[in-house]
């Protein structure tokens, strides 16, 4: 079967005052249809840039990006952002329906779909609440529902748990597993948390410190459906440590790099 996503030799260079910054250096990646791939790397390694290139928000400097499209009339991808990129001026319902509304899905159809997803993330009672009235975990559920409701071929997630406390994070990961396992969309999930990647992903791709390259790939052997309990197994701990061994040097390099050179502004310059 041909892969859903193909990245070939993708390079991204940002111009900066002190000379160009190479955010991504000839990174190649293939993701199969229905596969959940987690990209792990130290902060500032260009993993968010990678996701923005996949989402078509940022053009690559060179290289090939292909996402195979199977269905007509459906969006190719939807993004779940780091922190709170849901619109504070829209209610939960208005946020979740947003993608469908932008695509011109008929009113009745899009409202049914949005209500269904609000139910599935457990926010029925908050459908008409504004984000400021919600906790961090609830807000990110809105972000996830907004992406799922849009019914894309590929889900792109940029550290969606990054701003949450440890307990909320565990709960939300469990929920995300449940949601994902119900319809198995292709996912590219960016995180800096190894355990998060091992819990959620079929495969973990490790990136180097800037310039970001694909350093190693780990296949996650745990059977589906998965739950939090898998984290208690010795195999999980072993694999987690193995990835950390590979990541440690990069994290140290990233710390030195960050001291020498501030990263480009969040969101990336055009």
């Amino acid at each position: 079967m041909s892969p859903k996503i193909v990245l070939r030799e993708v390079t991204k260079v940002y111009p900066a005052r002190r000379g160009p910054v190479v955010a991504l250096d000839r990174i190649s990646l293939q993701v199969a249809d229905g596969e959940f791939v987690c990209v792990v790397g130290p902060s500032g390694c260009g993993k968010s840039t990678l996701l923005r290139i996949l989402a078509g928000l940022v053009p690559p400097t060179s290289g090939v990006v292909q996402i195979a499209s199977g269905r007509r009339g459906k969006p190719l991808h939807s993004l779940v952002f780091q922190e709170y990129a849901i619109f504070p001026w829209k209610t939960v319902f208005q946020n979740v329906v947003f993608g469908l509304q932008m695509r011109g899905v008929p009113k009745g159809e899009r409202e049914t779909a949005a209500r269904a997803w609000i139910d599935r993330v457990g926010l029925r009672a908050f459908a008409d609440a504004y984000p400021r009235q919600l906790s961090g975990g609830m807000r990110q559920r809105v972000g996830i529902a907004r992406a799922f409701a849009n019914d894309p071929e590929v889900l792109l997630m940029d550290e969606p748990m990054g701003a949450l406390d440890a307990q909320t994070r565990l709960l939300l990961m469990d929920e995300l597993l449940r949601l994902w396992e119900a319809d198995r969309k292709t996912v590219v999930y960016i995180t800096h948390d190894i355990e998060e990647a091992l819990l959620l992903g079929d495969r973990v791709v490790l990136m180097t410190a800037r310039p970001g390259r694909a350093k190693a790939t780990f296949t996650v052997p745990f059977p589906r459906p998965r739950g939090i309990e898998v984290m208690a197994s010795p195999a999980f701990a072993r694999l987690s440590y193995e990835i950390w061994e590979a990541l440690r040097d990069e994290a140290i390099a990233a710390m030195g790099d960050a001291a020498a050179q501030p990263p480009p502004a969040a969101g990336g310059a055009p």
Partner: protein
Amino acid sequence: MSPQRRDRLLATGAPLLLLALWEAAVRMGLLDARLFPPPSSVAVTLYRLVAGGEVVRHAAVTVLRVLAGFGIGASTGLIGGLLLGAVQPLRAALEPTISALYVIPKVAILPLVMLIFGLGEASKIAIVAIATFFIVIINTTAAVVGVEPIYLEAGRAFGARRTQLFVHVVLPGSLPAIVTGLRLALGTALIVVIAAEFVATQEGIGYFIWHAWNTLRPEELFAGFIVIGGLGMLSYAVIRWVGRRVMPWLEEDRPREGRIDHA
């Protein structure tokens, strides 16, 4: 007593105490009644002027001038600001000029405005419109430019096209700062209209205050201050109310625990 109750009591008690001190100082001859008429006689004068309809007529003229001038200035400033904010080349071309003109105190160009628009209503409305326009266009431009990039990105990522992005993201995202600009503009409009009414008119609160000075009637002078202060408070309340109506998602301001001034 709860802190809120205490604060309310202080908020009403302190000014009342101040008025009482003033009254006492005048009666004991510590304060010159020709400069600072006692609050009691100001109140009587104000009552007489309101009941007789004189001050109401002047206030109505001032309000109409402000409404007309503010309406013209705010609507054009809003449209201009949205355009400048959304179209970068336009901003590059016009923003320096607008910023340069903005810093000229609007009262200073009143003579020029009166040359152009004559001594009648048009010049009063025009000067208010000009003052409003600059404040609104500058604040609106900054508001649009200041919309968080993450929201624009989210809008684009979910397929919003240019107009959709404007309606669903840019406009609501910049509303809080736009409303702040409108509030500033309305405050300035009141200042400017009073200054404009000091000259070449027989109507308006500005004229009323000026006339009270000319005829050496300090009670009327202070009555005029109270009316203009009331108009200021009213305009602030209106903008606040409109702001809440158009931005129901914003948090009410309430005291926050742990703030340094929150005992």
